[in-house]
Each structure stands twice: as C-alpha cells, then as structure tokens.
C-alpha cells in the first residue's frame, strides 16, 4: 500500500519529468507547425502520444504481476542509472561544464533545418513533418513513460504518477500554444536536477529493500535520502566549479 511519503515524491517526479520533456517536445512541434503546417505536426505528435499512452496502459498493469522484490531490484537498477544520469548532467550544467539547453536556439535551428528540407508538398500528408514530430514526442515521451511506469509499478502509484505526468503535458500545451513560442524561460536544469534527485532516491531505496536491507526509519528513509542527495549534489556543483573551468556556452544539447 502506497503512503504519502511515496505518493508525493512520485507525483512530483512524474510531473517535473513530464514538464521538462513536454517543453522540449513542444519546441519541435512548434517548429514543424510554423514551417510545414499544423496538420502534419499534430498528426505526428498525436500518433506518438497515442503510442505512449498505450505503453503506460499495457506495461504498467503488466508489471504489477511481477513479484515486488524482483521489480525493486530490476526497476530499481534501471531507475538508478536513469536518475544518476540526469543528476550528473544537471550538476555538470550547473557547474558550467556542460552547456545549458536553450529552447529558443533549438527552435531556430529546427525551423532552419525544416525550411531547407521543404519541398512542394501539400500540407495534409507531409511525411517529413509527421516523422519529425512523431520522433520528437516519442523520444521525450519515452523518458516520461519510463519514470511513470517504473515509479508507479514498484511504488504502487501508477495512477497518481500518470495524472502528474498528464497534468504537466496539458499545462505545457496550453501555455505553449497560448504564447505561440518555445518555453525558453522554463528552468530546465532545475527540473532535471530535481527529477534526478527524486528518481535516484526512489531507486536507492527500492534497491535496498529489494536486496533485503532494512532502512533506518523504514518508509520515511526516502525523505532522508532525498535531503542528503540534494546536499551532496549542491556540494558537487561547488566542488566542480571550484576546479576553475571556463563556463560552457549555451547550446542545443538535450
């Protein structure tokens, strides 16, 4: 049975991961829509969202049939690799070692690229445009689907995590299409940092449980892990900064 020490962080992790990836996917959808027309942009994005929803609807309940200790170790290991990858990237970006992702620059690059590929196509069935939005939404969405399924299935929080992720996606769509431009002011690295901490915390907690280790404070240990991970990550940023490297320039790396 899930409790609030698990549901809260699970929903926040799913919401923030979805927020970050939705912002990045929106940039591509806007670029395709602007340059090659909205119909193919929406067909590609819609098809990808349908596939992602099907993945959550099928894999999520299917994983609940696997014994919990097996899930804790296997999903915990995958979550650890995923969470630590995000946390590492966020630390290195905060320290200026890796360039910060710039949505405005990504939008400009995508529109230029798509404009170059433009042919005399009728905007109803533009394969390049459909494939571009489909791939972008699938690529970003897979990360969200993994977080939702992994955290949801092991922590018995599939529905709250799905609602959190869907809410973020809807929010980004509403704001993005209302402003009609990429959401360049979203603090992408802060979101990555937070999701990295939360996902890594769940991973370590579940790995410990799956291996039969007992955590001090049982379920509330996850809150302690989160606090310590934040402190360590902030300290790591300072440590890397103090090594005195020149700050990296903005780039489109995701």
């Amino acid at each position, binding site marked *: 049975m899930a409790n609030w020490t698990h549901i809260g962080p699970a929903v926040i992790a799913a919401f923030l991961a979805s927020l970050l990836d939705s912002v990045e996917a929106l940039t591509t959808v806007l670029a395709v829509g602007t340059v090659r027309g909205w119909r193919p942009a929406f067909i590609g994005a819609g098809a990808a969202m349908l596939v992602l929803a099907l993945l959550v609807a099928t894999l999520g309940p299917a994983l609940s049939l696997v014994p919990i200790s097996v899930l804790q170790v296997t999903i915990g290991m995958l979550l650890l690799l995923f969470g630590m*990858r995000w946390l590492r990237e966020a630390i*290195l970006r905060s*320290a200026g070692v890796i360039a910060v992702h710039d949505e405005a620059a990504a939008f400009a690059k995508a529109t230029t690229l798509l404009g170059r590929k433009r042919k005399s196509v009728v905007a109803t069935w533009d394969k390049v445009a459909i494939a571009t939005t489909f791939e972008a939404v699938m690529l970003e969405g897979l990360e969200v689907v993994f977080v939702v399924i992994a955290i949801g299935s092991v922590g018995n929080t599939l529905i709250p995590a799905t609602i959190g992720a869907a809410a973020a996606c809807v929010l980004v769509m509403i704001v993005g299409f209302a402003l009609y431009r990429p959401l360049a002011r979203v603090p992408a690295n802060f979101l990555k940092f937070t999701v990295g901490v939360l996902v890594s915390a769940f991973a370590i907690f579940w790995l410990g449980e799956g*291996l039969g*280790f007992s955590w*001090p404070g049982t379920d509330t240990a996850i809150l302690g892990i989160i606090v310590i991970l934040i402190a360590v990550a902030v300290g790591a940023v300072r440590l*890397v900064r103090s*090594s005195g490297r020149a700050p*990296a320039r903005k780039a489109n790396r995701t």
Partner: protein
Amino acid sequence: MNLIVRAFKQLVGLFVEDGTLALLLIIWVGIAALALPRVPINSSWDAVILFAGCVAILVENVARAGRRD
C-alpha cells in the same frame, strides 16, 4: 534495420550517457548485494552503505568530468 538500431541506441541512451558511471553503479550494486550480507556488521548499516557507495560514485564521476572538460 536502421530504425531498430536507432531505437535501440535511444533506449540505451535513456540509462547510459557516461559508460563509467553506469558500469561502476552496476558493479557497486552487485558487490553490495553479494558482500554486505556476509560482512560481520550490524545489518541496519547495509542500506546506508549501499547509499553511500552510490553517492561516492556520483561525486567522483562529476569531479573527474569537471577536471577532464
């Protein structure tokens, strides 16, 4: 075929960006799973040691990346 290779690379990319970090984490979890239950210490320390090892690997990795780049 190209599509399958790209999809596989993207799937692996979800979990692995720096190969050393991923490899060390897998090795550490393996060592913790096999060795910690056999070490003659209070079992309540097992989970804490697992956590500390993961944190140490992360800090060492970012410190090294900071020196390298």
